[in-house]
């Protein structure tokens, strides 16, 4: 991969933020942060969760107002009281959670809030035409119809719509907040291509990410935030370790935990023979005790569907599932959990957290749901709030108070609580979907270690992730899926190129 882009434009910055500070009750979120970005430049903004990236972006877009400091756009001082004003000034932010309306069409969404009007009526013809123009950025075969309803599009296509919206706004500055979080490798490449094109048009791109590889691949310059301050600033892309050091303030060796020794991997706990449903076909699979099995594949390859099938959310309609020698059939997550399976969902907010409940209640929910089952184990399996809180301590869940509502915790800590939920049930199989999405670097290592610990304890781990280095770094065995089938299996140490080739079915992807 090419490390440095061919040219590094040195024009005056299109955007400058000087000494911006922002405090919330009890927290100084930003402390005299200065930041700039040039025309046609991709500036990576990196930092752990809670370092102040989101706050900075929200100030830039007018969601928050800075307590101190100035913002200059094209050398003119600006004040944004509302996102609308920043939009009008040419700043477009693509948030992590899409702000698309699921029941409206692509054209409706692209022109959301600024629909063209002719003689008092919506000018649909123009909306249609301009939508197609904006979409043309993605080449000829993007497959998005201006009239399709958003909920019928895939995640990557939805992201394209978000970008098309920014393009149609003729934004001078485009901010992307972890745009690849929901994308697979192939789609990432498409996205990167689009970013290159934006660059070529002279747009300044602020790119927020946790993934060093993307910084390497895309960025022209890097700003590192830590604890609300600028920890480092580079007008080029330095070595990843330098960035990481600046982010965490220490060197991160042993980022990935060691692999399992041959003696640690035991018998198959869960076996699937010829499993299939609407989205999956002839799945043959063994998940073994003590082993982390990583699942790679592009979006829509069926990895999540497989996790959901195993967990009884959308069960297999064909084939057989054998758990510890006995054939099982799960019709609901509850069946699966009772048999010893667990699942850490990918969309934490929508599927993992009980936002209004306390940290402790979030951790205890599964134990409570299976109180009778646990009591049946001779009482030893019972979980008290005190034991739960001790467990949080061991897992280094950081919270001011475990009785505080979980919505106020950081992503990494929230994820740990979701994992902790399962531990009291002594699960035999743990399915992790995107376990480190929205989790900062430091906490990532913690979660990898946790997975390894669980495997050492004799559990079978299934990890589904779109972060390929993560899959390759953590897993003992890598399975690649494509179009609802498992198409390849590799040992640890396989190269990214090989896996990508299997995932896409094209050998040229390896180039």
């Amino acid at each position, binding site marked *: 991969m090419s490390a440095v882009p061919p040219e590094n434009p040195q024009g005056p910055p299109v955007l400058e933020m000087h000494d911006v500070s922002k405090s919330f009750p009890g927290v100084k979120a930003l402390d005299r942060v200065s930041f700039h970005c040039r025309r046609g430049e991709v500036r990576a903004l990196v930092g752990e969760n809670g370092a102040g990236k989101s706050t900075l972006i929200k100030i830039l877009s007018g969601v928050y107002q800075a307590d101190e400091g100035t913002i200059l756009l094209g050398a003119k001082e600006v004040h944004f009281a509302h996102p609308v004003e920043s939009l009008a000034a040419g700043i477009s932010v693509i948030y992590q959670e899409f702000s698309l309306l699921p029941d409206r069409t692509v054209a409706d969404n692209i022109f959301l809030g600024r629909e063209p009007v002719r003689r008092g009526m919506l000018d649909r013809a123009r909306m249609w035409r301009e939508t197609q123009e904006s979409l043309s950025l993605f080449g000829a075969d993007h497959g998005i119809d201006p009239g399709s309803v958003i909920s019928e599009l895939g995640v990557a296509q939805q992201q394209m719509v978000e970008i098309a919206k920014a393009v149609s706004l003729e934004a001078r500055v485009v901010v992307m907040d972890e745009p690849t979080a929901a994308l697979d490798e192939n789609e990432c490449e498409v996205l990167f291509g689009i970013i290159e094109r934006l660059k070529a048009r002279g747009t300044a791109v602020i790119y927020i990410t946790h993934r060093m590889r993307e910084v390497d691949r895309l960025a022209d310059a890097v700003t590192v935030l830590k604890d609300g301050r600028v920890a480092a600033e580079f007008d080029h892309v330095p070595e990843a370790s330098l960035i990481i050091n600046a982010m965490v303030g220490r060197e991160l060796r042993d980022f990935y935990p060691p692999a399992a020794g041959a003696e640690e991997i035991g018998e198959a706990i869960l076996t699937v023979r010829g499993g299939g449903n609407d989205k999956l076909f002839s799945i043959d699979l063994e998940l073994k005790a003590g082993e982390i099995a990583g699942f790679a594949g592009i979006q829509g390859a069926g990895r999540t569907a497989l996790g959901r099938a195993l967990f009884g959310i959308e069960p297999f309609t064909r084939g057989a599932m054998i758990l510890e020698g006995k054939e099982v059939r799960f019709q609901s997550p509850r069946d699966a959990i009772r048999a010893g399976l667990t699942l850490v969902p990918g969309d934490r907010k929508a599927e993992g*957290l009980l936002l*209004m409940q306390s940290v402790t209640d979030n951790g205890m*929910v599964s134990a409570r749901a299976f109180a009778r089952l646990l009591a049946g184990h001779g009482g030893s399996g019972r979980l*008290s*709030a005190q034991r739960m809180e001790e467990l949080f301590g061991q897992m280094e869940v950081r919270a001011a108070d475990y*009785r505080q509502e979980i919505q106020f915790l950081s992503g990494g800590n929230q994820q740990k609580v979701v994992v902790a939920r399962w531990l009291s049930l002594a699960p035999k199989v743990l399915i992790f979907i995107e376990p480190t999405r929205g989790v900062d670097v430091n906490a990532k290592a913690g979660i990898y270690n946790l997975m390894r610990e669980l495997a050492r304890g004799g559990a079978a781990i299934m990890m589904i992730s779109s972060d390929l280095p993560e899959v390759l770094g953590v897993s003992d065995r890598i399975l690649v899926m494509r179009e609802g089938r498992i198409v390849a299996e590799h040992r640890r140490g396989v190269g990214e190129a090989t896996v990508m080739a299997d995932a896409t079915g094209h050998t040229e992807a390896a180039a």
Partner: protein
Amino acid sequence: MSSETQDLNAVRARRRLPRINPIWFVLAALIVAIIVYNPNFVQPVGYMNFLKRAAPLAILAAGQIYVIVSGGFDLSVGSTITLTVIGSSMLLNNNPDATWWVILLMYAMGLAIGLTNGLVVSILKVPSLIATLGMMITLSGLALMWSGGAPRGYLPESFRYFGRANITDLPLINILPISLIVLAVVVCLLWWLMHRTNYGRLVHAVGDNPRAAVLAGVPLMRVRVSAFVISSLTAVTAGILLGGFAGVSTDVGRGFELQAITAAVLGGAQLLGGRGSVSATIAGALTLTAIFTLLNFVGLPQPVREVVQGLILISAVAYAMYRRRHAVH
């Protein structure tokens, strides 16, 4: 059983943070105002009558809070009360010996109503507002069909005992209405179930985020349906008390569904689920009754009472939202 020990530590932990719901202050202020207008209120007969009158609403609201915390509404409780009173009078037919099995039958009916509500919401996925609205219309129609439009029988004293009788000649408090004992038992039971058991936390979980709850293994349908069942059973209880207090009529219970929701809201419950407390809801029910009593003593005409009720309803929620917005995160 396990839940008791399990949550004991949580109890201790929570006690460390005293946080009094403002509704208690409102209630206290109202009671002081009532005493100012009517000094007799401090006599046992005064406040006991007050509590006796509040008992059906308090019980009903304590059941409604289960449905609200689980993320729904139950509008069918008012007509469940009607059906209980009408049904009991029809079945009893002035025969005191039948009291027990009729009460049992009424609870069975409540169970059936709650199950239907819950299953319609869970399986047919009808929004609870509409499902229980339909149930409300259906049940009041059934009550009228059954009775032919007017009450057909009396409730014997053995049935009316719970809502009407007092234990007299007690030291200190002099009289103690039976309905107050019923209230105390029901409230303790429901408070314990909501705040001291696993089930109660699961109700919160389901109301907070049903998808997450299902993936965490919470039996969504069972929890939801049981919340509706609890609500219906409290409606039957309220019906037995109301029928006991005042006898049979075809419009007993009318409007109680909105009063119960109002009481829950005054107690700071979060509509659409996830937050709510039984004790604060009881305080809300007492507050609502105290407002009516006070307005009665002040001698304001009925229309003004409606205006005041409306204003209080809006301000209670507006105040709660204001506090939530300005809470330190």
